[in-house]
């Protein structure tokens, strides 16, 4: 049998390739807050990028409490989802990508979402990076595997 960790890694990497949108959960003063974001996941699974206007609630939340998680899934809104779909939750700390790192990160992000160029370049848009500490991969309806990408 193949290395289970490699199997999980390749499934997550495959989700990064096929999915464009994911649900971001942040913590606000009044409770959790969920938002849909356009993401890019690094092939080595270490980090995930997404962009957000700085005026949003999710941005205020993650600035105050950087611990966030992101749900990426392959459901197609059909009954077969229950046996076919996969979902992965990535958790970690979010921080705004520093100006010095922007050129490289922008290239990664725009390769995935070229139509978001104007949005990304706006001075009021922040590019946010999640340094992923843990992935939880859900398959076959209920099977959950965890992966610590840094180990």
């Amino acid at each position, binding site marked *: 049998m193949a290395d289970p960790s490699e199997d999980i890694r390749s499934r997550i990497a495959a989700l990064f390739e096929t999915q464009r949108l994911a649900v971001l959960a942040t913590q606000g003063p009044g409770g959790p807050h969920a938002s849909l974001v356009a993401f890019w996941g690094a092939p080595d699974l270490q980090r995930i990028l997404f962009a957000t*206007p*700085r*005026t*949003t*609630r999710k941005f205020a939340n993650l600035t105050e409490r950087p611990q966030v998680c992101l749900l990426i899934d392959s459901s197609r809104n059909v009954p077969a989802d229950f046996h076919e779909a996969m979902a992965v939750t990535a958790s970690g700390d979010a921080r705004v990508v520093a100006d010095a790192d922007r050129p490289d990160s922008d290239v990664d992000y725009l390769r995935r979402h*070229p*139509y978001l160029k104007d949005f990304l370049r*706006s001075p*009021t*848009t922040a590019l946010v990076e999640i340094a992923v500490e843990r992935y939880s991969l859900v398959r076959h309806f209920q099977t959950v595997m965890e992966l610590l990408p840094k180990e």
Partner: protein
Amino acid sequence: MKRLLDMTSGASLPVERIGGKALSLFRLQQNGFTVPETLVVITDVYDHFVDATGLRERILLELHRKDFDQMRWEEIWDASLRIRSLFLSASIPETLRREILDTTLERFGSTALVVRSSAPGEDAASASFAGLHETVVNVSGEEPLLDAVRKVWASLWSDASLLYRQELGLDPERSAMAVVIQPMTAGRCSGVVFTRNPADSREAVVEAVHGLNQGLVDGAVEPDRWILDRRSKTIVTYREPKRERISIPGPQGVSLADLSGDRVEQAPLEPNEVHAVFDMALAAESLFGGPQDVEWTWVEDRLTVLQCRPVTTATATATDQRGWYLSLHRSYENLVVLRKEIEENHIPAMEQAAREMGAVALNEISDDALADEIRRRRDVNDHWVQVYWSEFIPFAHGIRLFGQVYNDAVRPEDPFEFVELLSHAPLQSLDRNRRLEAMAERVRFDPNLRERLEQRKFPSEDHPFMQEITEFLKRFGDLSCSAGETVQCAQGPGALIHIVLEWAAQPEVSRPLAGSRNSQARIRRYLDAFGEERRQWAERLLELARASYRLRDDDNIFLGRIEARLAEAEQEALRRLAEGGASSEEEVRRRLKEVMDEKPDAGTGAGGRQEAGAERRSYRARQLVGQPAGPGLARGSARVVKRPEELLDMQRGEVLVVDAVDPNMTFVVPMASAIVERRGGMLIHGAIIAREYGLACVTGVPDATDLIRTGDEVTVDGYLGIVTLQ
């Protein structure tokens, strides 16, 4: 597969892939008509291009910022400009590039070319609207050819196509554009023929000019015109124009030149040639089974068909304003004439009219005279409102012509960069605000004066401050009544003094940004993009665009003065009527009452709407999206202005939220931290004035004045076009 189709090889594909124009040329050629040799860049190439460059999704994003039905024409134009700019700056993938260049070179060598649109929906019998898409004439060289192809592709999303999207079956998800490439045919004369006169179905029309037909098509050269009877094929009337100019090929594109020599006196066609043109078009009509609009040119002895499409009978209804919007696209020549008329005749006449009205001492004249005066002022006002729509508005849209020329020449990353070259011109409203600031300055340094004003104990008329107030009112009218349609002006100088006090309460209100060195560099970059001989024209166009930009603001100020004079007279009448008095006097006031009752739709303006403020709602807006019309980020308390008099409550640092910023309202702009406007567009007054002051501005926010309430904490992101309510 081969994606550039050579029609002479006889291959044929469905209209979805080669477009209507290519298909009709192909059928004409098969049936013995002379048509130019033609290459077709099929729609597959368009699809490949927009997919490979990510443009497809960007176009969809642009067109889905808000519901189409809620987009004003100006917003459609803005979207169309952005899309065009995306096409111009996207590079064509190498394989496609080579395919287009190599096939064209192989087929036509290095001869000059014409690049035309061939959209699948374009020439369908039910939807033939001329001038929807771009044609680029006289193209030489590799980059100009690729540019021309990109421009034609982009014109699938021109404002005209977007306006007629339903008739054209334009579908942002699926529509694609084919392109026709032909060698340039510079005939001795050219023209158009309608086998059925759109104005009279029993007639046909032949129009002809010397040289190329470009000037005829865009209205710069007046053609010779023959009306023929369809049945007897005889010439019914012939109109000879003053032949002054001719379209000729320039180094790139087409130039206008003065017509000289014999051709000034000579009609482009002999009568037998008129008949030959008509016969050719009739043959096309029977081939396609309906009246045709044919563009032709006469090359030596051969009558060549350039393009052919069905004649559509305009079915414009009274509520269909699209034709009018499209008429706002004016040529440079037309705008020059319009400008002269406006600057030399209309504006002095408006100033004169306002002055004359101002000289009438309203409180001294009899009721009868006042009634007459009100009627007269209404007529004067109506007249200028009409001129405003027919002359001023079209001229003010001249900035759009400059925008397109600038973007074509400079290819800026921001498609609205061109506005920077136009701003910092002396706008009337800025002049007005400078005077307000000067008065506020006087109050700031004179606590004694301030106290008296605050207690409404105004100094006597000869006090320098009061003289300035009087002078201001004479020059600009009462701000509180010229701000809207209502006649409820504040009495006397009170309202103006209130505004001055509000200005004076602040250390110093924002000043308009000074012209930056940046814009000087931009002007050079713009001019350098033109060759030696086009440079002067480019300079003149910039000058014209600046006048157009100024007028966009100023015309309303001039009109505002006329309106203020009318409001003043009506107010005097209201005052006398309110005084009433003895019944005998009421009889005397009868005429005055009649006159006031005639007033059309008094009071149904902005104030007439039911306020939603009191009602409890289970939903609220958290974030609203409009167009990013003024870069900047600001946060403040919202001041929602639904009635002009509410402007007087505006306080420093508030975010001004309005349905539409009228230039007469712009005196509150320097106090605002940002502007949110329901009406959409990058070049509307609110956006222009916000940019002058460097304020964040978002326009085109649907229902802004209902969803945002005075006192709401809002953040205005003028880069992304987002308004967030805390």
